[in-house]
């Protein structure tokens, strides 16, 4: 089978060489958990700034059946 240079490059650039070496591996599990908690805390903080009218119900439904 004859390959063009483009096809050869495509084959060489296969999945293994495309796999990154994650930087996150350098972070400890504790640091990642702390970062995740901080992200959730920031989200909750953003939500706390919204004034919610008292009559507002949550956006889910329960139907008796």
């Amino acid at each position, binding site marked *: 089978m004859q390959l063009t240079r483009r096809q050869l490059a495509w084959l060489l650039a296969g*999945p293994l060489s495309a796999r990154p070496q*994650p930087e996150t591996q350098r972070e400890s599990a504790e640091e990642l958990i702390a970062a995740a908690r901080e992200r959730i805390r920031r989200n909750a903080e953003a939500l706390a700034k919204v004034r919610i009218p008292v009559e507002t119900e949550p956006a889910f439904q329960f139907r008796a059946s």
Partner: protein
Amino acid sequence: MAALPEDIFFAGIRELNSRLVKREFSAVELTRAFLDRLEKLGPRYNALALSLRDLALRQARRADDEIQRRRLRGPLQGIPFGAKDLLSVAGTPTTWGARPYANQVLDYTATVLRKLERVGAVLIGKLAMIELAGGGGYRWASASLQGPCLNPWDTSRWAGGSSSGSGAAVAAGLVCFALGSETWGSITTPAAYCGVTGLRPTYGLVSRYGAMALSWTMDKIGPLARSAEDCGLILQVISGGDSMDPSSAGKSFYYAPQFARPLKELRVGFAPVDFDEWAEPAARPDFHKALDVLRSLGLRFREVRLPDFPYSAVAGLIIDTEGAAAFEELITSGKVEQLADARQIAGLKAGLEVSARDYLRAMRIRRMIQQELRKLLADVDILVSPARFGPASKISEPLDRSRSSAPRPKDRGLADLGAAGNLAGLPALILPCGFADSLPIAIQLVGRPFSENTLLAVGREFQRVTDWHRRRPPALPAA
């Protein structure tokens, strides 16, 4: 029979079905050709989770038998397709893209797959996805059992997620269409990055029975396909009430763009800042051309902006909470450590700690968002914005790396339409609209709940006068 021509792999549903009905080739021949291509090229893109050759050939033989007897079941009869590997097929592995579930075999089949089987569509494979559809928040494209899904337009780029394999497989002509799912961006992103048409249906229109749950209040299943027309044909089959899905809206969908309101009567809301500042510079010219095309179709434009809410924070908190609850057993058992993405592991664990107060606050704000978007969509029929602000990111870069050194625009425009639309359960149609750095880009049309026919009518006209959806990746090797 001689090998089928390459064009077959990029043909739309109606064309393929018409040629099947005319007996130019059989469903078995078509299915074999797609299977060979999927099995050969799918792994090169990390797009294939599981080939379903035996099942597919059984379904194809049935389609041939029925076509021979003129028992015609509609345009999807005999059409090979793929499904994101979060949809269960009884008796075959369903991995949810995640190592802890690599050997999972469920004993039920997803409603959407049953519906497609009923009209004669042929399921040829399960397609790769980001593990657990991204629950917990992933940082790398490699967060998948198959590794990073490579973009057929440029294999140094990501196919998008979490319906990664669905986007890549359609773009590379490995399937005629695919099913994906979206909680927040998981149909939109791969459709935009891979240059295919995607449809995120209204929440509740399509049954999720048999699909992995990430967020019970936000998950939707929808098609990625060659055109708006094909998305309409698929949605007509997979929509409808289902007593097995508590979120089912009990509504059906009949694809009838011919009965949609004339385009000249439609009002489109857009925010110039989305196209002038939020969009990456390389993408701006083609985004502007897309707006010009929509104007040329007679649509009337009006400037709008989203009401001021912390959309991303609300969506993030809801998905974190529901996702952690859905995978509580995985997390507490410690098997969560088998996931590929360290950030995702941490995100899932932290999600278990969200307070009920914060979750309920998010869900109450979500109700306010829904009400405000209803008002916005009373003034306009459709919102249009870039589906993503730029083309696919590099596989080698973390997904949270900012690609622009420019300061964030002060005007939010419709920049949060992805989060807002998903929170409000609104439908979205993703239309390829050009290229940036030789990679596809797309716009999204977002409409009122259950307005899919309006979106599809606009999409069909857009694709009648453009050919972006017909473009093919340039460097595809022959199968």
